């Protein structure tokens, strides 16, 4: 059994909009171990153990204010547990 820190977590996001492309860029920048793969219509971002989405990073790339709730327009699915979702950050990881 893998420890919580090594099992993968990740998001599947809709492909096609600039917003979502910037979102993936922000996630990749803040999570150096993140790997992005493509399927028709979809982008998958995954990383071992934990992944963070920072509002600041997304806003820098979008050039406009971004609420973390806007992530609901991009997300198709995820694996892992959402450990935190507040004004500044979304964190996904395994608990145990």
């Amino acid at each position, binding site marked *: 059994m893998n420890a919580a820190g090594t099992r*993968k977590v990740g998001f599947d996001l809709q492909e096609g909009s600039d917003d979502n492309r910037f979102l993936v860029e922000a996630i990749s920048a803040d999570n150096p171990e993140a790997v992005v793969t493509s*399927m*028709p219509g979809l982008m998958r971002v995954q990383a071992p153990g934990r992944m963070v989405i920072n509002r600041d990073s997304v806003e820098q790339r979008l050039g406009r204010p971004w609420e973390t709730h806007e992530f609901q*327009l991009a997300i198709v*699915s*995820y*694996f892992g547990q959402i450990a935190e*979702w*507040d004004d500044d950050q979304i964190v996904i990881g395994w*608990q145990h």
Partner: protein
Amino acid sequence: MSKKLSMQQRYSALTRGLDWTPTYVDAEQVYPYTRFEGIKVHDWSKWDDPFRLTVDSYFKYQAEKDKRLYAVIDGFVQGQGHLSLSDAKYVNAMKLFLQGVTPLEYAAHRHFAYLARYYDGPGPRFAALCQSIDELRHTQTEVHTLSSYNKMFGGMHSWPQQFDRVWYLSVPKSFFEDAMSAGPFEFLIAISFSFEYLLTNLLFVPFMSGASFNGDVPTMTFGFSAQSDESRHMTLGLEAIKFLLEQDEDNVPLVQAWIDKWFWRGYRLVSLIAQMLDYMLPRKVMSWKESFELYFEEQMLGGLFADLEFYGIRPPKHVDQAIGEKEILSHQVAWTLYQFSHAAAFTTTVPDAEHLDWLSEQYPDTFDKYFRPLWDKAARIQEGGGRYFSGGLPQLCQVCQVPMLFTEPGDPTTIAQRENLYEGERYHTCSDGCQWIFEREPEKYVQAWLPVHQILQGTCGGPTIPDVLAWYGLQDGDSGEYVGSLDQQDWQKWHAEIEVGS
């Protein structure tokens, strides 16, 4: 007080802050249904909603999702989008989706509305309310999306009637009715956890990606729009199970038994999806086997169940049999649907040579050995001017209601059939998983409405196939062989017109 509340403060104010404790009526009278299953909840305030969704942000983002979807549907209709599909055969997948899944969304809407009234805690009540509205939205968006296809293709004109009557649709219908007639926590483990968290990725993600790949942009868009809600529903399922396990150790065996039951019920239901991925998409995205390995074995068994082990939860009973079937499941279901599509609201045909080769590549250990010979034989019959349809009625599993088409573990050539005697009657199930479910609650499953039994009892319009099809509400062109069907003739005519016009 600061000018602007943080997300956490807003969630707390608008959800927990609006709750009250009844004083002139006993709390157990207000919430009468959350105790009889034996689940012990000591502190509802420990329930946490990671999305911290409030009514105002819920409507804001749902409205935005709808706006995007309806713009896509408008563009599709105005741009004659039905002509840009990969092939008219593809629409069979959408027929099955509208007939089978859309009514489930509506059923989910109804039951979550009920739970939004009856859970004791304000956190789960509000989560159930949002989900109830989501599910109604999904019903509407799916009907609207598919109505543009309904104008052009057969099989989609009477789906609510079909859902109540047609034999293969009793599989999804009985699944949900089983859950809706269980207690409130079992429903949550059944639908939110076992179906939505464990299995829903298998349904929506590769299939909607497949819609994209086959030129079906509206379906991809409603699929992704619905699935983005699904990520909240998955969170509800995961939060529910962790909440129940943390509240009391006595909850652990109850939750485990529900996971064991509802994993298998859900897995049998998605066998219809397995054949959609492998047989109904003219352009392939991934095979059922790849999809199962990625979305179930890697993400759920490797990721989630390692987390749940902390609470003493083990992977679902009979999961090894599901893993063992990944090489054969889609082929066995597709072959059955091929034989019975004269009585279905979609058409089937023999996969073409390129498709068969793809299946050989994807399933090197099983396809050429067990399944290709069946399709070759069916192709020879069709080349000779015939078409093989089964003349009989299949025996159905008393629990999952799928025809007895599954085989013994490790032996793809021997049909599995289990039997039990209950109060002097003999009942049959398709697998160890379904038999185990039957034996736990025989008094529930002996009441199953089995379409084949009903036909034989004379309650389905009459004794002949045309009688039964009329009772189903099917019309000419809905059923049978795809080659030469009305859908194919129309498709060829439309494309010939484009050629002439260009």
